[in-house]
């Protein structure tokens, strides 16, 4: 199963082969989960959304015309679900409370060099995460795909269904916003 190309697995899965689809899940679970996690910043929601992504992909497989790669199509589902997650979250909670929840739910299992460094690093990371959270969603989605996932502008543009120039412009704008908010730190 591991040697079979994605396209063949997709065709099998379309015919109802659950094992073929499970192999696709195995291949892309980490990338999908890590992307979603950059949006949610907590593992519980990331797990839920990752499951939802794959379930939605499975249910929609018959509609997938294979004009793009399975990976691109899957990413699109994950990003859309993550953005919708944000919309709902914003409705449910006030912005401030939202940020506080974020900062308190993060893992902290690294070993600091010293208490001073630890404290400074924590503070800096908190500020950076808060600044990223204030980015408009369109900018944030581009930022996550390019910076955290290491995608090229072309790859990100396929997932976000916009031009490379738009991704490039959003990256520039996102960086300007971050620099403005973090100027006392950098």
């Amino acid at each position: 199963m591991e040697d079979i190309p994605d396209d063949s697995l997709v065709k099998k899965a379309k015919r109802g082969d659950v094992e073929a689809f499970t192999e696709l899940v195995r291949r892309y679970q980490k990338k999908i989960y890590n992307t979603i996690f950059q949006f949610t910043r907590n593992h519980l929601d990331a797990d839920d959304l990752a499951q939802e992504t794959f379930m939605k992909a499975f249910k929609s497989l018959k509609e997938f015309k294979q004009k793009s790669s399975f990976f691109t199509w899957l990413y699109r589902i994950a990003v859309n679900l993550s953005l919708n997650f944000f919309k709902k979250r914003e409705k449910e909670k006030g912005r401030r409370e939202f940020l506080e929840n974020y900062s308190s739910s993060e893992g902290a299992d690294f070993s600091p060099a010293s208490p001073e460094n630890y404290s400074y690093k924590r503070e800096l990371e908190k500020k950076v995460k808060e600044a990223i959270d204030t980015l408009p969603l369109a900018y944030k989605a581009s930022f996550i795909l390019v910076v955290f996932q290491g995608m090229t502008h072309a790859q990100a543009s396929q997932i976000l269904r916009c031009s490379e120039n738009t991704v490039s412009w959003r990256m520039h704008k996102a960086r300007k916003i971050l620099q403005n908010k973090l100027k006392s730190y950098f």
Partner: protein
Amino acid sequence: MKCKKIEKWISDSIDNELSERKREQVENHLQKCSLCRNYKESMERIQSTVKNMDYGKVSPGYWGEFPQKIREKIMSLEVKDRKLRPFALGWKWAVVGAVLAIAVAIGLSIFYPRFKTVQEVYVFSFEDSLEQISQEISGNEELEDIFNLVIMASIREFLDEQEWENSTYSYDVSSFLDGLTEEELSLLDLEIKKEIKS
């Protein structure tokens, strides 16, 4: 060379998306401009910090269990639930465009009547379509917000709940237009132009 253009190219450069020719131009500019040099260094420090931040890790067994969880969920699905139509906006933009052109005109005149007294009704006539309107109201945050709000409200009204949930439009009205793809912006522009002609 203007610093604004260099700042944009610095961003492209950090993403390894800058051509060799532009890279040389950036380097030449940086030798002369300390502001842009500082900007580049600041951008690189932010990039480095973001990439090296700690986000916590999932337990080692998670990746082994996850595909199994999905497999079990699929097995429990009923066959009739396996068909799910994807969200396709496509042709609906034509109708949305017509609705929003009218809605924008009405909305702006209701929400921002005093603008009329300052600049007559030029902005609201859509004489030169979306781009012109965007330029006219650029810098006036209140008017930009109203403009975006009315467009978004008209689309929201048109889409059913499922389509709205599946859409990726920004909840932030001030960045709504930024969130549209070029294709969507062109369609909006086209529909507004049609509205002007009629």
